[in-house]
């Protein structure tokens, strides 16, 4: 997404939507929307009727009939326009993405090590290419050698370059992004047409859009209502004939179109598309509308502690040596073990050692660095015959006893004290000897507590996931106000937690980035993968957050809820509207033969023709009037379902009952003033 925000009402989008609205009149497209299809069929039938009357030069009501036909076609066009408007911004965005996919030349590495130049689309999965500073990465892939800073603004809109390096969780690169410095070897992981950029273009264009389960259910309901009203109108004619007041086809079709829920029928798909589009505006790409909907129903939210609840970087603030160890000695060992550790924690240890004891960074010749893994839960260095490890207390305790060392009782005491205070203890050891602990402080993000309160109001349970020990986790959980926590979490634990919640009937949302997270992301109902994450994570999730901001999950849920609510309130509004239309049309139909029915004409509409016409015009205009609401979504405030429902019911239910009485009366006044009937 280029960051230039494309406004919904931009001229080129509106112009394109107008053309699309006519293209969508194709019955094969319309049939997907049963309600509007009925309106289209009705309009077509009346058009034929109008032509017949024209040719037969039937005198009376040509002007009236012409206006009815005109407004019925407008009704269909307005609904199409709503859908086209919703798609419009996505289409415009797809265009700008296409520009990013310019024909890129790639340098492919042959098996014998020589380099050949090929066109980007010729690359296949498994090819290895070399990309140097200033060049575009030709396809999605994984860095297998080297480290480079990459400008991903074409995809994320984020202008600050990101680091991509071989191995670890930051190895995925996206086609169409540009290497700014250094040179990397990339193994291509996608075939032409299947790259991230291709998929995104298809997604934002809505080409792959399928109806979501909720949409299908609502469509069934609307189709059911349409059938009921079709029966009600069709059976009315025999009654009318019996009463001596047979109705013209024009009035009957007008009645039918006014009764069937055209407002929601016309806006339904626009609401769905707009929901995905609103996510896109927040730089989240949803792989399916289904995921957006599921987000609105989420009951349990799994949040990583780091980055979501606390600021990403924990800072080393204190060295606590165990008995028989001096503080500088501990600091020196901790610094050695951290020199190659590029995590913020590692760096903060080096900084603290330098500040407190003047220990400078050294070149470690021939040193072997042991990286941190989720399994071993420690890292360190082998250098000069020394073997230093730092890591989670129990992992280090294990390591020490494996090497024949003893775990001093003081360790437990220190570790517990740090944990109780909400800090994270790191323990440093050299072979069989425990040296001491490092106090890492966690800083809880401002405002996160209020956020969780809101979530609780919405009935969403938050679970904090952390690799910390239970004591630390409990303190931070209490401070941040999450409902539950999972401490010392391994990837399998996450997966199990999700399965357990799902077994109890809850919908689970989570956000993740690493390869470790992939199974859990796939299992969760809403799995948001961060764009900085691995290819595996991105493929497992059903949404991708281009900003890689873990707090996004909360926004995703809000957009989902907003989508479901918008659909609900517009359905309510649409059906409540019908009451007024009856009071306009029914008296108009029969007042000439049964004058007493004028008592039902409570709006005191001018004449039968103006009454029917006003109702049809109102019915068409209300679609246009509600397009902004459908695209923007109803305003969402975190509150319990009951309160929310009562509020929306009052506004859109009662409002839907009253608004058309006023609207139809006003239109009637205008019609009379303009002398249209």
């Amino acid at each position, binding site marked *: 997404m280029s960051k230039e925000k494309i406004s919904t009402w931009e001229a080129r989008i509106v112009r394109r939507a107008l053309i699309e609205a006519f293209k969508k009149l194709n019955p094969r497209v319309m049939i997907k929307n049963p309600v509007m299809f009925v309106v289209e069929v009705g309009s077509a039938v009346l058009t034929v009727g109008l032509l017949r009357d024209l040719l037969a030069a039937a005198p009376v009501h040509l002007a009236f009939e012409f206006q009815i036909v005109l407004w019925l076609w407008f009704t269909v066009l307005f609904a199409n326009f709503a859908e086209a408007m919703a798609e419009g911004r996505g289409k415009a965005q797809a265009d700008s993405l296409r520009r990013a996919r310019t024909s890129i030349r790639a340098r492919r590495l042959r098996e014998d090590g020589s380099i050949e130049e090929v066109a980007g689309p010729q690359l296949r999965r498994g090819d290895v290419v070399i990309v140097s500073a200033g060049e575009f990465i030709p396809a999605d892939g994984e860095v297998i050698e080297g480290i480079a800073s990459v400008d991903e603004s074409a995809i994320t809109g984020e202008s600050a370059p990101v680091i991509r390096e071989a191995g670890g969780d930051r190895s995925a690169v996206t086609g169409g992004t540009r290497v700014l410095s250094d040179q990397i070897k990339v193994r291509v992981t996608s075939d032409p047409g299947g790259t991230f950029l291709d998929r995104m273009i298809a997604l934002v264009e809505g080409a792959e859009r399928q109806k979501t389960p909720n949409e299908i259910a609502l469509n069934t309901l609307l189709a*059911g*209502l349409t059938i*009921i*009203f079709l029966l*009600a*109108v069709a*059976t*009315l004619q025999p*009654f*009318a004939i019996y*009463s001596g007041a047979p109705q013209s086809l024009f009035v009957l079709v007008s*009645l039918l179109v006014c*009764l069937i829920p055209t407002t929601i029928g016309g806006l339904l798909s626009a609401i769905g598309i707009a929901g995905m589009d609103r996510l896109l505006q927040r730089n989240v790409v949803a792989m399916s509308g289904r995921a957006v909907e599921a987000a609105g129903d989420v*009951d349990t939210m799994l949040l990583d502690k780091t980055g979501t609840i606390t600021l990403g970087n924990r800072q080393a603030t204190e060295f606590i040596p165990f008995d028989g160890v001096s503080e500088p000695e501990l600091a020196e060992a901790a610094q050695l073990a951290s020199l190659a550790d590029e995590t913020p924690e590692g760096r903060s240890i080096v900084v603290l050692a330098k500040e407190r004891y003047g220990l400078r960074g050294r070149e470690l010749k021939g040193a072997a660095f042991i990286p941190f893994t989720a399994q071993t839960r420690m890292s360190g260095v082998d250098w000069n015959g020394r073997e230093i490890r730092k890591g989670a207390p129990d992992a280090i305790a294990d390591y020490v006893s494996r090497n024949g060392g003893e775990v001093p009782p003081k360790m437990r005491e220190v570790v517990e004290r740090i944990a109780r205070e909400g800090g994270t203890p790191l323990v440093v050891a050299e072979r069989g000897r425990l040296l001491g602990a490092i106090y890492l402080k966690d800083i809880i993000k401002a405002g996160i507590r209020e956020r969780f309160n809101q979530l*609780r*109001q*919405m*009935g*969403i*349970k938050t679970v904090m996931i952390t690799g910390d020990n239970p004591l630390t986790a409990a303190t931070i959980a209490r401070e941040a106000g999450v409902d539950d926590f999972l401490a010392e979490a391994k990837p399998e634990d996450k997966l199990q937690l999700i399965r357990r919640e799902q077994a*109890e*009937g*809850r919908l689970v949302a989570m956000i993740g980035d690493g390869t470790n997270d992939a199974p859990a992301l796939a299992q969760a109902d809403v799995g948001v993968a961060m764009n900085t994450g691995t290819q595996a994570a991105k493929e497992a999730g059903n949404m991708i957050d281009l900003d890689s901001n873990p707090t996004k999950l909360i926004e995703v849920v809000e957009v989902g809820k907003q989508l479901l609510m918008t659909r609900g309130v517009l359905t309510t509004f649409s*059906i*409540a509207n*019908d*009451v007024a239309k*009856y009071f306009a049309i*029914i008296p108009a139909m*029969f007042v000439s033969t*049964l004058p*007493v*029915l004028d*008592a*039902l004409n409570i709006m005191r509409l001018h004449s039968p023709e103006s009454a029917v016409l006003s109702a049809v015009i109102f019915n068409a205009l209300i679609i246009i009037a509600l397009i902004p609401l459908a695209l923007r979504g109803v305003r969402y405030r975190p509150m*319990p*379902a*009951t309160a929310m*429902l*009562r509020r929306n*019911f009052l506004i859109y*239910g009662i409002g839907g009952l009253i608004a058309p009485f006023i609207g139809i009366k006003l239109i009637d006044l205008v019609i009379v003033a303009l002398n249209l009937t």
Partner: protein
Amino acid sequence: MLLGRFFMIVPALAIAGNLARKKSVPPSLGTFPVTTPTFVALLVSVILIVGALTFFPVLSLGPIVEHLLMYAGQTF
């Protein structure tokens, strides 16, 4: 008459079957309790409005017009 009475059972049963297959969800603040006045008001108004919408055209030609005519002094 037979159609009107029994045909409607088919879709109703289909909905029931669909609901029965759904997993039950533990209640939370996010669920909508069915034991409150809000729910009652909601249910009653939905039944009334949808029912009225279906039968209003025919009613207006039958009982309503008769009622109005009766006040106008004409009975059948």
